[in-house]
């Protein structure tokens, strides 16, 4: 069996002492920083991104993935213990997790969250293999025009399906594409938007943009409010879940995994919608829906499984097609590019040790997460009482120093500060930052594919509709755009957005 060979290769890579250490470090740092109040996965990853530079690509991605699901998991710990979601996807976990904690069953809630996340993470990883391999094989036949159309679809879907205003999200995509153009044009060698600065000839650094737009602006947003937090540390309770807890969580976990896997693959949806929908589903299926919001174990198991499954399956389009569906995936993809790996369907064939090594590390990482989290809950609880006024100078320090260390260039730090200002203004105007980063990452690839397609077709624009694959993608994008213009669907989406906001 070929697949067994792949797994042997993957585990061989992932179990090397070095990669095991990076996986452990990633999971640990991710959880540690993810638990800290007001620091979500995006801030964590962008802050630690510069430090993975210089590692071999496999180790870098293994560590970043570890940080990603570690931070994701850390968010649910805070949701359960202090009713404070580390990020939007664990907002739903607050509803019943915190109620369980108030009834002295925090330990059971944490354990169920860990176990359902673990199950979902493993199933999600298996799905990456099951779907990713054929998908990459199919995508290898894509021509330049098909690729361009696929990127259009990815960007349109990410803006249409994501939270909030569609037009602003699309504008942010275009702005991101423009920012991605800064630097030397590969075809003509002309410098674009560099304003005569030699430091900009290679473009605006990926970490400079990510740190500015996610980390710096997030810190300023947090500083708008005074901190007020009720830390719940009275009694974590026994960590061992009761037998009936496990039995009650079994099916919700599987249903949550199914929902999460589906939304994870779609661009723009991801963990938040998954956890919300799976919570709603469990509430509908329950014999006694009134228990929800009062500490129902299913209300912890299902959303936790859903957001973890979505977090895993989001890797499918990223690793196999080179099209990230969310901001976090854009960061992972950016890290790949930064490390000299050309993303796309050929990654699996050209860098099998990377693909399979990362896959294998996900099983290990998910297991580490359970092993690490449950015994260390006491430590996480104590971390929660660190005041934000100590944390944010440290975040700013890591942002500045991290960016400086990449090129030893002060210009990068200035640029990052400037992008931070832009990011804050955009965030206040409710312009979502994720589409901008997606556009930035895909911009250069998009331009290259358009150019190549039109060069081959001798300037004939009809090439984009003559290829059936490209036509399908473009038609789907158009359909998505038109459907959002229809008032009925728009109102429905506004309602979902509102309900989701209500759940937080």
């Amino acid at each position, binding site marked *: 069996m070929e697949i067994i060979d792949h797994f042997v290769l993957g585990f061989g890579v992932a179990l090397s002492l070095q990669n095991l250490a990076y996986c452990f470090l990633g999971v640990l740092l991710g959880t540690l920083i993810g638990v800290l109040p007001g620091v979500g996965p995006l801030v964590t990853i962008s802050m630690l991104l510069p430090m993975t530079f210089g590692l071999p690509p496999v180790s870098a991605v293994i560590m970043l993935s570890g940080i990603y699901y570690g931070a994701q998991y850390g968010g649910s710990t805070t949701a359960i213990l202090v009713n404070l979601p580390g990020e939007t996807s664990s907002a739903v976990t607050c509803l019943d997790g915190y109620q369980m904690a108030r009834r002295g069953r925090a330990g059971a809630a944490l354990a169920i969250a860990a176990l359902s996340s673990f199950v979902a993470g493993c199933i999600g990883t298996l799905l990456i293999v099951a779907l990713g391999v054929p998908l990459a094989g199919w995508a290898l036949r894509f021509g330049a025009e098909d690729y361009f159309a696929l990127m259009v679809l990815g960007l349109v879907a990410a803006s249409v399906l994501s939270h909030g205003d569609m037009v602003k999200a699309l504008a942010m995509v275009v702005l991101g594409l423009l920012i991605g153009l800064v630097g030397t044009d590969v075809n003509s060698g002309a410098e674009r938007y560099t304003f005569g600065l030699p430091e900009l000839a290679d473009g605006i650094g990926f970490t400079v943009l990510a740190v500015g737009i996610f980390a710096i602006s997030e810190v300023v947003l947090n500083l708008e409010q005074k901190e007020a937090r009720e830390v719940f540390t009275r009694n974590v309770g026994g960590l061992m879940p009761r037998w009936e807890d496990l039995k009650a969580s079994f099916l919700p976990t599987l249903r949550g995994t199914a929902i999460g896997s589906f939304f994870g693959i779609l661009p723009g949806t991801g963990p938040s919608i998954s956890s919300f929908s799976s919570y709603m589903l469990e509430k509908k299926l329950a014999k006694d829906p009134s228990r929800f919001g009062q500490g129902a174990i299913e209300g912890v198991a299902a959303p936790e499984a859903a957001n973890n499954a979505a977090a895993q399956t989001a890797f499918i389009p990223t690793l196999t097609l080179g099209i990230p569906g969310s901001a976090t995936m854009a960061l992972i993809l950016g890290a790949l590019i930064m490390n000299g790996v050309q993303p796309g369907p050929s990654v699996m064939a050209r860098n099998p040790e990377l693909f399979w090594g990362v896959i294998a590390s996900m099983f290990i990482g998910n297991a580490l997460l359970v092993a690490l989290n449950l015994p260390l809950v006491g430590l996480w609880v104590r971390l929660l009482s660190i005041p934000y006024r100590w944390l*944010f100078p440290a975040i700013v320090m890591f942002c500045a120093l991290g960016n400086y260390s990449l090129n030893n260039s002060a210009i990068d730090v200035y640029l990052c*500060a400037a992008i931070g200002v832009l990011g804050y203004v955009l965030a206040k105007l409710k312009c979502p930052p994720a589409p901008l980063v997606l556009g930035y990452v895909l911009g250069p690839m998009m331009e290259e594919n358009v150019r190549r397609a039109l060069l081959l077709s001798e300037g004939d624009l009809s090439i984009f509709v003559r290829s059936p694959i490209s036509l399908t993608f473009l038609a789907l994008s158009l359909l998505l755009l038109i459907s959002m213009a229809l008032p009925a669907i728009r109102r429905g989406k506004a309602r979902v957005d509102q309900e989701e906001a209500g759940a937080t």
Partner: protein
Amino acid sequence: MRTSLFKNQDALAGLLFMGLGALGFAVALGYKFGTTIEMGPGYFPRILSLVLIGFGILTFIKGVRSCAAIEGGWAWLPLALLTAAMVLFGFLVERLGLVPALATLIFVSARAGHEFKALEVLVLTVVLSLLAAAVFVWGLKLPYSLFAWNF
């Protein structure tokens, strides 16, 4: 309900997009446009800038209609302080060395918080400088001098 233009979330976003699009277009006028077969470096930027202006106009119109106001106030002071902290760090790190640059960064950014306790900030500075030196200079072996005098 009327909202002043300066508080109108979508109208301001629209103006910002239009402005950035116009800037992008103006700068791209200096690059060769080329033809569809052989696109010049100016082809993509000009089209993207125009699309951005278009989305900006749509957003502006929507803002004028819906009059949704910006939520909460602007945190200009923290923003200015954090920006200043980073700029000062960039300026000082090559001139005075890592430790003075970090101390300045932490001191200035800490002022952006709601509470500022001198002793706390001092301890924070010492701990974080040690951490940074440990991770970046001793751990990642980056060639930074902890103290310097280059003017």
